[in-house]
């Protein structure tokens, strides 16, 4: 048995703390993520999927429970400091890239994810070949726009760049928050393929939220159903293979 790369122990979060409207969003999440896991996460709106990512990402603090990275307690570690091992792609393509900086400049920023940045001249030219080759792996012409400001890219190219930025420096954990939801079906499929290829080839550990049950079944080695702030089901390996959309859909009814 592998040691988990990330572990959540009875994680709870509250909103409107100390008021009459105090509500628990995550109601005690226990989750062990093993190295190489590619977990798809499904659940209704309000089930706590985004909250779960925010708690793992660190821009929301757990009110109870513990989060461990390689056995080390990171429950109180800041969002910025967690980026040394964690990367994230947001649903909105605008959130993942700096619009007035060029594609190459965005990628250069990503090479230093989670590191101290010093007063030394950046090395953009020296990295250009490498960045262009990486951009070409996205199969959407991004490699021809290396010196374009990202604000001028299409949503699909921008999101592909967000994905590249998140994976340029290998993260221990990759969080994909419905990262293809804002794209048209074709572009979305293209990015999903590229995502899957990259994760499988590099043996990345990733969590992907999706509303498409087919995608949740197609990709990954594990599938988690979140409901009402709790993990209702956790399918892995053969169990996940045997799962169908109909069976999965039953979790959404009541």
């Amino acid at each position, binding site marked *: 048995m592998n040691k988990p790369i990330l572990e959540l122990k009875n994680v709870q979060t509250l909103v409107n703390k100390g008021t009459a409207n105090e509500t628990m969003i995550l109601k005690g999440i226990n989750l062990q993520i093993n190295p190489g896991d590619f977990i798809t996460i499904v659940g209704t709106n309000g089930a706590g999927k985004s909250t779960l990512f925010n708690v793992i*990402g660190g*821009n929301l603090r757990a009110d109870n429970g513990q989060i461990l990275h390689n056995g080390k307690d990171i429950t109180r570690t800041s*969002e*910025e*400091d967690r*980026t*040394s091992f964690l*990367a*994230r792609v*947001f649903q909105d393509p*605008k*959130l*993942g*890239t*700096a*619009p*007035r*900086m060029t594609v190459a*400049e965005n990628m*250069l*920023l*990503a090479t*230093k*994810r*989670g*590191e101290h*940045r*010093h*007063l*030394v*001249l*950046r090395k953009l030219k020296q990295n250009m070949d490498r960045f262009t080759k990486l951009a070409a792996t996205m199969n959407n012409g991004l490699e021809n726009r290396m010196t374009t400001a990202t*604000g001028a890219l299409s949503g699909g190219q921008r999101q592909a760049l967000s994905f590249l*930025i*998140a994976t340029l420096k290998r993260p221990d954990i990759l969080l994909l928050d419905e990262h293809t939801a804002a794209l048209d079906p074709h572009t979305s499929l293209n990015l999903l393929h590229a995502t899957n290829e990259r994760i499988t080839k590099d043996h990345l550990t990733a969590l992907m939220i999706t509303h498409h049950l087919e995608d949740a079944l197609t990709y990954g080695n594990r599938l988690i159903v979140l409901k009402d702030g709790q993990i209702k089901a956790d399918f892995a390996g053969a169990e996940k293979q045997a799962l169908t959309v109909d069976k999965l859909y039953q979790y959404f009814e009541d």
Partner: protein
Amino acid sequence: MNLVVSAIGQGLLWALLGLGLYLTFRILDFCDMTVEGTFPLGAATAVTAITNGVSPLLATLLAVVAGMIAGLITGLLYTKGKIPSLLAGILTMTAIYSVNLRIMGKSNISLLGQPTLFNGALRDLPQYFDSVTLGFIVVVIITILMVLFLDTDYGQAFIATGDNPTMAKSLGIHTDKMVIVGLMISNGMVGLCGALIAQNNGYADINMGIGTIVIALASIIIGEVAFGELTLNQRLVAVTLGSIIYRIILLAVLQLGFSANDLNLISSIVLAICMMIPQFEQRLNIKKPILKGVRPHE
């Protein structure tokens, strides 16, 4: 001719204000009102130091430090105190007014008969060439330092902070620290500008900060209107040129018979017109390249 040389000299000296504000207003996307207090703070610090026997160079450096402290305070109010940017700047600016009176002890101090950076080695230059020379040297040094800074890993993280704070954070950039550092550098430059202008004018006055933010924005916007789409480094040079153009516009207006008392009104009108140009461009469908640089900020 003399008047034009004077306008160029003033434009060069005041360009520091525009360059300082460029870091916050354009790069960090932070409208920093602190400068209205920092500018006279720099003047008050330098002039008071000089009249107390401190060398003009050291006095000017003290003004830079004073400006940086003001920027630090606004930065802390904004990042740690969670006070909105505009209000944080206004709070610091208002507080500095009292600080300036404390520093100077009265509302106006003259530098008559005192050494300044302008009557040292530059003493033998023809009239107004002292401000052109010193202004040029300082602007060139500051611009080169800014270009180098923005081209470092640290500077790139600084740009990203203003461009997309969510993304910057997700790459581990400590955005709060970047905002504080940016405000400190920016206000340090504004303090420097105040110190130089006071030495050039020969006095420091408690009210000399009024309208400075408009003057700074005017240099930035005029530079953008006049030169259109530019790279970041070219934009920094455009700020200085914008500052000189602004002084020449003022000169022209004064020649029309307006008095120096009308300057703040004129400054505001010039800036308002420049900022409305994109609207006119849309309505009238003019597409001159000269208008390209003033698209509303994203």
